[in-house]
């Protein structure tokens, strides 16, 4: 139940981010200044934290997505669905531990 709620929320969140992200990237066609101005806002500390959240969402959605795929296609998937959910959480924690410090240093050291 909760894995599904999270998957859904993260999916929607990523979708809306993606819409914005394509629009801002499209600014490279307008002019380098325009693009740099927008992308500059991504580098502020507040957005930096937002990016952590975004990456967290993507990572969860991705790992849990793989879990769902295993449930669907692996004959023992339903049996181990709970175990796999804990694995998803564990992998998520590990990934975020690898990413967050590195990213925040990048954001705050500039």
């Amino acid at each position: 139940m909760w894995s599904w709620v999270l998957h859904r929320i993260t999916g929607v969140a990523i979708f809306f981010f993606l819409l914005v992200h394509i629009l801002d990237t499209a600014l490279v066609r307008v002019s380098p200044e325009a693009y740099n101005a927008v992308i500059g806002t991504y580098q502020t500390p507040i957005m930096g934290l937002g990016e952590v959240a975004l990456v967290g969402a993507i990572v969860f959605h991705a790992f849990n997505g793989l879990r769902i795929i295993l449930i669907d296609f692996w004959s023992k998937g339903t049996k181990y669905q709970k175990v796999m959910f804990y694995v998803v959480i564990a992998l998520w924690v590990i990934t975020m531990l690898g990413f967050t410090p590195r990213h925040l240093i990048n954001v705050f050291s500039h």
Partner: protein
Amino acid sequence: MSQTLDAPRTPVRPARKKGVNWEKWGWIYMRVSGVVLVVLIFGHLFMNLMVGDGVSAIDFAFVGGKWASPFWQWWDVAMLWLALIHGGNGMRTLVNDYARGPKLRAAFKVAILASVAILILLGTLVVFTFDPCPVGQPADLLPSFCAA
């Protein structure tokens, strides 16, 4: 979530007409694209956020540098298509689940379809018509190879 529905299991929507079964293929697509997207998105995030100075290194020059290579061009276009259709189809599921009434439902779906279609078109055009060294722009904003 509401307690009850007025009429559960009354077929308000007509049964599926013969032809391609979008439900099934949509379902399969979600899974196939999901697997591919893991690779694409993780690669993308890794390149942009982890390598070098991460997010603070991203600017016009960075993008220009990447898209100079067809490899990254195709990478990003694939990601664009797969992710948008994946996300769009996912949003359609949500609309089916939560939106009540045929009109509201149709409106949402049109909106999703339109935004996905426009963005795919826009994104693809941007990537392929992108000129990393536009004329008349300050050289310090451009990728280093423009000077050559």
